[in-house]
């Protein structure tokens, strides 16, 4: 089988508003994966070879010049900038208040890197200064709390967003997301993961579309942080997190809501807090911490779409995701996406009676799973390794059962919780006032 060989790739971005060198040193790298921007907004991505460890600036220029869409964008933006002045593409004057929520669990190294980038976030001029809420989800150690305490010292400096630590003892990513939204004070809650490094302008860009009240959620471009190992390289070849470089508006009137996964992922998304809290968008039967592994973010976007809100994908809101370096976690990741995706679609089918979920299942298998299987069977150079493809397919069959099992487990937990409350709560005290409740969330203020 003539599979493609791993190519170590350097990932970086260039902004055409800034000078570009004639020669870029790329020792040890065979390829360069470049995000090209103009005045911080995305233009295109390039994947260029680096012969002899050198990448010439002219090669980047030529590649941009031959990219038709990038050329059109440059022309469009140049004309608008020339006609309206430098602030032609500026953000709206009024920016809603915001909270960034980082859900973490025993990954202090990743969290430290993530917070480092969040500390450098820039708000729009005149925009509200927001806050960062770190939700520590059923941690085994207090490492995350110590990292937050370190950074809280920096927060004292003027202009830095406030940093808070919240603990959610119930294990599960969606428990953590919901807990973060309840603890947050911003009108908009922007979610990112602890293995992500956000762009300096991320919050400004992801808030822009919320000027329109119809917008319920905004997602952005998730780029690879590095491609240093075969596992990371394979993940990018599988498709990575990329959702393209064109802004898209998702609206249930012209988009099948069950395909909400096309809008983006939880590592780079923002939602209106009121909708998250009042609508209980994060379903605890889904996502990490349950046997479904993923799908909670997609389900939240599905719920927004069927409620008549729009979901916007904007490639200008950029984060850099550090894919797992090891091969084993990669297999688990692909399996998890497949299980979670089908668990989510089963949820749409079973709980909402949404028959379109069947169509989405068929489409997904046909366009994605079958494609990988076909490449593998035909021994195409772009084929993924067999164990990855099999893990991906396994998720198709496990996903629906995983959801049903997760639902059963969650119902049993709820029943036990209710029984415990009834036993412990004094007469006349309602469930929400139960003395158990405060123990579930602990917070340390800066």
């Amino acid at each position, binding site marked *: 089988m003539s599979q493609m060989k791993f190519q170590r790739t350097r990932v970086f971005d260039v902004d055409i508003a800034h000078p570009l060198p004639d020669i870029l040193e790329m020792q040890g790298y065979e390829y360069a994966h470049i995000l090209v921007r103009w005045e911080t907004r995305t233009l295109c991505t390039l994947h260029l070879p680096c012969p002899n460890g050198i990448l010439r600036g002219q090669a980047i220029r030529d590649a941009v010049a031959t990219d038709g869409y990038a050329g059109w964008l440059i022309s469009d933006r140049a*004309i608008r900038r020339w006609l309206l002045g430098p602030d032609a593409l500026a953000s*709206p004057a009024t920016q809603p208040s915001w909270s960034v929520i980082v859900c973490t669990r025993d990954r202090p190294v990743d969290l430290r890197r993530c917070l480092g980038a969040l500390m*450098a976030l820039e708000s729009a001029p005149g925009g509200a200064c927001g806050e960062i809420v770190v939700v520590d989800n059923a941690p085994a150690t207090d490492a995350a709390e110590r990292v937050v305490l*370190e*950074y809280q*010292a920096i927060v004292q400096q003027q202009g830095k967003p406030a940093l808070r630590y919240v603990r959610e003892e119930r294990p599960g990513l969606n428990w953590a997301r919901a807990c973060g939204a309840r603890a947050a004070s911003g009108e908009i809650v922007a979610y990112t993961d602890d293995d992500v490094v956000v762009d300096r302008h991320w919050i400004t860009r992801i808030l822009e579309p919320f000027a329109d*009240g119809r917008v319920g959620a905004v997602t952005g471009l998730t780029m690879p942080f590095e491609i240093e190992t075969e596992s990371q390289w394979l993940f990018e070849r599988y498709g990575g997190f990329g959702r393209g470089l064109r802004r898209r508006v998702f609206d249930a009137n012209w988009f099948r809501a069950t395909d909400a996964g096309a809008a983006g992922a939880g590592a780079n998304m923002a939602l209106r807090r009121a909708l998250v809290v009042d609508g209980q968008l994060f379903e605890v039967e889904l996502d990490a911490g349950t046997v479904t592994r993923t799908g909670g973010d997609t389900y939240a976007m599905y719920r927004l779409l069927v409620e008549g809100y729009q979901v916007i994908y904007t490639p200008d809101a950029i984060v850099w995701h550090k894919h797992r370096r090891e091969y084993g976690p990669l297999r688990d990741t692909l399996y998890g996406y497949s299980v979670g995706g089908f668990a989510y679609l089963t949820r749409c089918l079973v709980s909402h009676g949404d028959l379109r979920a069947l169509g989405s299942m068929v489409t997904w298998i046909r366009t994605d799973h079958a494609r990988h299987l076909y490449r593998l069977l035909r021994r195409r150079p772009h084929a993924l390794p067999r164990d990855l493809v099999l893990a991906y397919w396994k998720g198709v069959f496990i996903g629906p059962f995983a959801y049903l099992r997760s639902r059963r487990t969650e119902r049993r937990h709820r029943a036990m919780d209710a029984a415990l409350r009834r036993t412990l709560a004094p007469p006349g005290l309602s469930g929400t006032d139960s003395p158990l409740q405060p123990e579930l969330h602990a917070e340390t203020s800066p």
Partner: protein
Amino acid sequence: MSADRAVRPFALSVVVPSYNRRASVEMVLHGLAAQRGVQLADIEIIVMLDGSTDDSAVMLDAWVRSGRLPGLRWHLRPNAGQAAARDYGARDAVADVLLFLDDDVVPEPDLVASHLAWHASGTHIAVLGDCEIVREPGNGWYLQNVWGWWEGRYASRVLRGRRPCYLDFCAGNVSLRRTDYLASGGFDPAFRGYGGEDYDLGYRLMQQGVHLVADRRVRAMHYHAFPGYDRLRRIRRQEGHADVVLGRKHLGLRAGLRLMKGDQEADRMIRVAFTSAGLSVAEIRTRTVWAVLCARLGARMRWSTQLNMLLTYAYWRGLYESLGSWQALEEFRAGAIVPIHTVDISGGIDEPPSDFWVNGPSDLRVVVGGDELGIVRIPGPVLSPLRATLADRVADSLAGPLWMWADRTGTSLLPSSSWTGATVATATRSTDATAAP
């Protein structure tokens, strides 16, 4: 039948036209009774029953007797349409400031005070408030779409660089000085059905120099319900009639009306609307059944298409009923006046003159450095920030000529720093982010 006319000077008169909506009007009255920051005795409330046959009158009598709203009066008149009802009420009002509310628009507690605060300056303005559609989980698709449409309109009219135009003048929650209203001639009773009368008044007010001001804090809640497919079609047909009346009245607005452009997706429905009535009835029934089925099966996209087809048909059927033939429609279209403005973009795009906002549709002759680049068509009133919209149109339609002009004259459209120099901007994804604090 009406209560005795109040003689005390009111600060503001509220005019509420209604037709057979007893419960809804009562909610409006409750909303008015809960106003803050203003004495209830300073508010005159005139409910115009436009031929109502339900027990609205009994309910209103009970309210008047209760004395909860000291300035409440009501009139029952033969059905003549919303425009006539509003006009009668406005001319009967005594306060300096008029506030028009629809009978399903329930004011928020600060509504009256917010309107009065705007008018305290004494300038000639009309204050456009929001009528926020009440959203609840589980709302049907129709209500979701109506909410989305209005939300988009309300959000757009307060954008930086955007001035409200006559299409933003919606009589559901708007206030203006009584003298301005009377000077404009008021609502035109020629608009008997749904729609058109507020755009007409907004246009005339702008022509006489009244500025439209949009403020999202001036808020009322709009209790809207799905009226059913038959009533929706009737409303859309009346909009077709109203557009003809509007176009006949104001030649300058004709070019911006929906009838000037077709609807590619529903071209067939437009043809059907202007041909056989028998075929129309059969097709409409089929599509209505299909829409109901799609709604039952959860097929939203197909439902949207069917609804669009039905409403397109209804609108063009309304045009057909008003104009009589395709030939007449073509003549009507040919009568549209499209003024041509010249815009010199040599120094960028400046804020256009205010008459651009008043008159809406215009063709733009774009000139740069003495050379004409071409003509940009503005297909209707601009409902987004105008400078940005004009820049979009130039970038879309005249990019080629503009780059050729730049090339010929040696003008650089790109900032000079682009792609030169010696350092790469790895910018935000810097490795510093991994450093400890």
